[in-house]
């Protein structure tokens, strides 16, 4: 409060020099004018913040992967905010405008340059919730919603467990939908690493999606149902620590559930954090592995969870491994193209993003290591580089 007062003292001082009647009018307008530029009814979108974003000169645009791929003003972050504002005010209503609200990689690259600390994906979630409430959500996305709600995972013909019997354990491992259905090798290596060092670990008999896609797409009520069920089942597992291979799962369980009123009663960790803990305790013994690698920071892991050092320290602990850093690295990492369900909502843009990122990585090493199953799958698709998860490299080193 004091800081705010100091910050605006120069304005207060200038206003104090005006005639008393003018002072009053200026202050009243300053405090009340905004209301007439906001929607009359209640919205789930924070239109006040969207307006700030729409009135910005786009200071984050150079780092927005979607804009850099589309190379069209329509996809500029403040441009999307402007259309969001016009949608919320009822001044535009086209399907194109609605579809644009989903053209975001949810990578939060924008946030690091934003003077208001906004992330465009956070702003857009509110708009999407309003679109859902007004029955304007695109049909294709309704299909995704139905798939998740009915099958408890985003993947069709899917698996929702590792097929292991639950057992008494201190650690709960939640693989996540992508690992269960597309990258089981990550779960297998993770479980083998833990078994090898004698950690008692259990899994859920039926893993439901963490709900991140529902939350991202604005299906707030469905998301809350998933959050309530998952928070309850995690508590019932009795485990005080829970590890996940997917950064989006960690972020959702740890931060988004708490914000939605369903805090998870366990210490939620990403596998990279836990592996480092075990290495530092001397439980994981790593052997020489002669490999040149380039590490790709997953956006959610680096920017939303601030887990940047841990995966690097795991890799540095492996004798013989040489880790290269791409030009856009750590908190300045660039999206692989999969984030924010972009591969579903805007497949062409997603591929452009992926190719751009992969070409940066391929220049540095033949093998890309990452710590997110979705990123790993993305890099496998380009076939320019070998794509591995951190758990696979750790497991390979332990078994040399």
């Amino acid at each position, binding site marked *: 409060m004091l800081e705010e007062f100091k*910050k605006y003292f*120069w304005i207060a001082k200038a*206003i104090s020099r005006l005639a008393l009647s003018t002072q009053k009018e200026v202050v009243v307008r300053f405090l009340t004018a905004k209301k007439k530029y906001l929607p009359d009814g209640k919205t789930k979108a924070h239109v006040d913040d969207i*307006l700030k974003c729409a009135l910005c000169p786009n*200071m*984050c645009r*150079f780092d927005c992967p979607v804009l850099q791929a589309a190379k069209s*003003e329509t996809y500029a972050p403040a441009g999307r905010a402007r259309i969001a504002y016009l949608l919320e005010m009822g001044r535009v209503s086209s399907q*194109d405008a609605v579809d644009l609200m989903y053209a975001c990689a949810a990578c939060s690259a924008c946030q690091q340059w934003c003077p208001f600390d906004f992330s465009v994906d956070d702003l857009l979630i509110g708009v999407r919730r309003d679109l859902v409430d007004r029955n304007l959500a695109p049909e294709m996305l309704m299909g995704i919603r139905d798939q998740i709600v009915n099958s408890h995972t985003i993947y069709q013909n899917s698996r929702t467990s590792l097929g292991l019997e639950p057992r008494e354990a201190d650690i709960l491992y939640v693989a996540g939908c992508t690992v269960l259905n597309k990258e089981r090798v990550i779960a297998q290596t993770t479980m083998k690493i833990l078994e090898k060092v004698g950690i008692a670990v259990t899994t859920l008999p039926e893993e439901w999606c963490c709900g991140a896609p529902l939350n991202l797409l604005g299906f707030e009520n469905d998301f809350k149902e998933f959050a309530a069920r998952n928070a309850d089942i995690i508590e019932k597992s009795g485990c005080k620590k829970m590890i996940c291979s997917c950064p989006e799962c960690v972020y959702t369980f740890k931060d988004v559930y708490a914000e939605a009123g369903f805090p998870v009663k366990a210490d939620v960790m990403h596998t990279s954090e836990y592996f480092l803990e075990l290495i530092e305790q001397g439980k994981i013994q790593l052997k020489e592995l002669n490999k040149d690698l380039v590490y790709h920071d997953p956006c959610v892991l680096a920017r939303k969870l601030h887990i940047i050092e841990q995966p690097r320290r795991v890799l540095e602990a492996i004798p013989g491994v040489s880790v290269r850093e791409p030009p856009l690295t750590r908190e300045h990492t660039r999206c692989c193209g999969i984030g924010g369900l972009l591969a579903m909502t805007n497949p062409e843009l997603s591929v452009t993003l992926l190719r751009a990122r992969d070409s940066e990585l391929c220049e540095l090493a033949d093998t890309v290591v990452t710590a997110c199953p979705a990123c790993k799958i993305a890099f496998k698709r380009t076939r320019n580089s070998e794509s591995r998860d951190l758990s696979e490299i750790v497991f390979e080193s332990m078994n040399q």
Partner: protein
Amino acid sequence: MSSENTTGHTHGSDYEIVYPQTPLSAEQKEQILVNLQKIVGKRNVSHRELDRLSYSRDYWPIALRWMLEGKVPALPEFVVWPETADHISRIMRMANEENLAVTPFGEGSGVLGAAIPVQGGIIVDMKRMNAVLALDDTNLTITVQPGINGMNLERFLNQKGYTLGHIPQSLYCSTLGGWLACRAAGQFSTKYGKIDDILISLEAVFPQGTIIRSKPVPKSSTGPRIDMLLLGAEGTLGIITEATLKIWPYPEKRVLQSYVFSHLEEALESIRIILRRGIFPAVARLYDQVETERHFYRTKKTRGKCVLILILEGDRELVDLEGSVSHAVCTEHGGISVGEGPAAHWLETRFNVKEISEFTPRDVVFDTIEVSVMWDKSMELYQSMISAMKSIDGVIIASAHASHFYPQGVCFYFTFGGTPMTGSPTDFYQTVWDAAMKACLHAGGSISHHHGIGILRSPWVQQELGSSLEVLRTIKKALDPEYVMNPGKMGL
């Protein structure tokens, strides 16, 4: 797609168009669309309402206000993304045949309306021409396409061990083409020069489709520089399609200095002497008392004073020497050193552009005006422009800092903010600008140092340029007889 009529309202959407146009017939539209698709390919043309809306504005503050009032500045008929100079040449030939306006677009960060398609027509967005073509260490040059974003260009150079030295506050949100078209200046320009100093040569397309390439040489005396016609022309005389620029090795050392002065005159005199002695700080910024209070309230010693910040950078030994001479000059002229703090604070916060976002929805009309003047008239210009702005009913704040310096003079960057007591915000805005421009011209200043003319400054161009404007109009008519290139701008 909604189709707007001449009254400026659209069917299916609810907004008013400030510069409405008679729409093309469906047949004309279809024919032009097909022709454009033949030139650039289907994926590089759009006539969707969403895209047209997205290119309906730039960062002209009053046009941003219009958004709150349910207005859209202007809608182009088509948006085109060329990939080569030949594409642009063919677009220009077609535009001449069809008598369609062509407005070039970079990233829309201009603050005077220059990129608003006031006569509809075609927006030529340069973003898909953003490649780095060559980096030459021996000649210290980079050749690049103009659609590249400023920060992405600077990031590329930094990774290779260089800098362009052109760091405007719009670095993150503007393109090289925009800088050249508006004769931009960066915050580090006192050392590295303005974009016109940094340019070596260019390739461009003139309004009737002719492509020119100037030769990349450090200097020649082979007649007037035709390529220079494009600099500051804001897209009214052609479109730049490639540029070779000077680059610098990334500075080895950076020294930050901050001083407080009791009077603006003393601080201005210090900078004049520093430059006269042949020292060119990369950054020199001098804030009047109001702006000092606004930006440096955290440093107690700045209260009631004017802050001067200097940033010297380059070769280690030279920078050390420049730092000690600058320090001596400032202290001899009444400056008191307050350490690195204010300079470091400026460095850290220089891209925090929040004012328009914060104040516009509160009905505070806010803008900046940058002008230049010779040293002997600098204080007169400062005082008369501040007085002129303050004299307008409703102005709450009128302040300035000096941000670019030369051995011969200075650029002042004024800020005004206020709430119109009577009349519309647009009228209030125009009235303050009018008062400021008149005061500037009366004091012998130039009405723009580095933002350009656009729509807003057009009414004062005649007074600024005098008979030169007639010459410029003759050139315009010769090069662009159909007036297709960015019409309605610069008083042309």
